[in-house]
């Protein structure tokens, strides 16, 4: 029982990180039709810039805000330079461009920060909490609370604000949105900026637990991607649920089968989901992806 509780807590912590990336994926995918393979690199940039500022002596809150702003700016620059020109080309070219962006950003990370892993002090300084036999790192609770707050903020943003409505209009029907006078190009830029900021938050949150390296982005990005695919492509709640499932799957397969093979199991599940439920396990059928 204690073990089970421990797995659930760890799984939800990791899942929350993937969820933040998955939200970014969903936002970009629905507005632009692009799956941004570079999404994970924003987590790397966010984490490493935050560490740099914190080490330079800035207070941690200021470092976090600056890191998020810098990552968001890079997201915007990426959209304005690389993505914007190629928006009307084929899917393969778009995939390769985002992979190119990912490779480029990873390489810049390597040049700027080197290969050594960097650490960040815990954001919350508290004793671990004992709950139903499980030891909960306060950091985990903090991550989960941040996810809930961000979901609430995003809900208000998408449902209650003008820009949010415009973004949703682009999701539903880009052409109609364009005809209604919404600038879809600006919306695409906004989506990338937002997704980069969310990626940076995910990167900063996970760093106190796992340390940050220039290579950290790709795999957690792909996991967020997996979460989104499992949960369904078209809604933020679905993607978050999918990402939490990926987190749980990882810790449970790690606990009961083998930590070594947990990544392999995650991807095996992904491939099975793609075969049998290609629209995600929560979605109703529509024939776009097969």
């Amino acid at each position, binding site marked *: 029982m204690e073990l089970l509780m421990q797995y659930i807590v760890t799984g939800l912590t990791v899942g929350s990180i993937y969820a933040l990336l998955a939200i970014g994926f969903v936002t970009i995918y629905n507005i632009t039709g692009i799956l941004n393979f570079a999404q994970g690199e924003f987590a790397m940039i966010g984490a490493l810039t935050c560490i740099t500022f914190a080490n330079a002596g800035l207070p941690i809150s200021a470092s976090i805000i600056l890191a998020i702003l810098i990552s968001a700016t890079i997201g915007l620059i990426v959209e304005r330079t690389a993505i914007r020109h190629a928006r009307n080309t084929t899917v393969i070219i778009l995939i390769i461009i985002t992979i190119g*962006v990912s490779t480029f950003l990873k*390489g810049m990370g390597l040049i700027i920060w080197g290969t050594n892993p960097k650490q960040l002090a815990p954001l919350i300084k508290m004793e671990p909490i004992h709950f139903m036999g499980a030891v909960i790192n306060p950091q985990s609770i903090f991550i989960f609370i941040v996810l809930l707050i961000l979901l609430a903020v995003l809900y208000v943003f998408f449902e209650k604000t003008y820009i949010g409505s415009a973004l949703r209009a682009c999701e539903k029907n880009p052409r109609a949105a364009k005809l209604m006078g919404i600038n879809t190009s600006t919306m695409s830029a906004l989506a990338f900026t937002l997704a980069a900021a969310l990626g940076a938050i995910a990167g900063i949150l996970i760093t106190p637990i796992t340390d940050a390296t220039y290579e950290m982005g790709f795999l957690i990005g792909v996991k967020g991607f997996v979460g989104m695919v499992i949960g369904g492509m078209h809604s933020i709640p679905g993607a978050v649920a999918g990402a939490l499932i990926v987190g749980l799957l990882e810790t449970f397969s790690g606990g009961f089968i083998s930590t070594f093979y947990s990544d392999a199991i995650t991807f095996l599940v992904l491939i099975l989901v793609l075969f049998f439920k290609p629209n995600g396990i929560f979605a109703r059928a529509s024939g776009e992806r097969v």
Partner: protein
Amino acid sequence: MSKLEKILYGNRLKPILFLVGLILILPLVVKSPYIFTILILIGIYSIVSLGLCLLIGYAGQISLGHAAFFGIGAYTSGVLTTSFELSPWIALTIGMVTTFFIAYIIGIPILKLKGHFLALATLGINIIFYILILGLNQLTGGAAGLIGIPSLSLFGVPLTDKLFFYFFVWTAAVLVLLLSLNIVRSHVGRVLRSIHDSEIATETLGVKVENYKVAIFALSAAFASLAGSMYAHYITFVAPPTFYITKSILFLIMVMVGGASSVWGAILGTTVIMFLNEIIRFVGHTYFGISGEVEIVVYGLIIILIMMFLPKGLIHVISKPIQKLKPKKKVSVKAHKDMISQKGV
């Protein structure tokens, strides 16, 4: 017919003769064993990128997992020749056949996916393969890798000499190239191109699209396996990092930089990227003192720029002026003028 073929596919004899000539002349010019190693690796990787080119450029299907098939070939050769002491040639054949069937079986469900999801699924396969070769350490040597893979020998002549191996690799590469060119020119090639343009339209013409997609996927995997076996026997050492997604991405970049719409692009792209790789490493390590995979910055930048401004790849830049030089064009211009004058415009 032959005239039509020339217009449709271009002249293939001249480029092949040029390539063969280049392969024969290079050993006379190049004396540095270091550059020779690069030339051999270009040959090996060209075989992979030729297969990938057929898959991406002709069938229009993406794969982010070809390093896994490259790895299956390398590890089959490595394990069978070291632990089971089989002949390298038998191991190489077993590797190719196994990879073909594995790719065929995986391909049946996977190639139903499109675009992004196909990319993600093949990426997943690469990650699973990587974890498996790390995990099955009794067979594969795990993270330490497999050492002591024997070199190839042909008709009793050991190919340990770089010159022999160079000719062997490039003979194989030219054969793969010829096979690819024939596939492209056959009805299969035309079906693949029509799948590339519209799967639905092809299907409504009564073509079983899945069969073609799966077959070309399996064939390109078998090419990758062949290259992997050669790599294992040349380097005589294999370790898991060589077969990670970064390698799959590198293969993809080679194909796209050269130009996926032509099989020649695959060889060109491989050559350009391999030399670039060495130059960047040299400059990065000697002048900037940076360790690790610095070359990825340049790869990333190059592939973004090529995709933005030259989506048809470098081969397009080279082949265009060559075609302009040909007198054939003048005739057609003249014929066009005649036609116009006849109409009295």
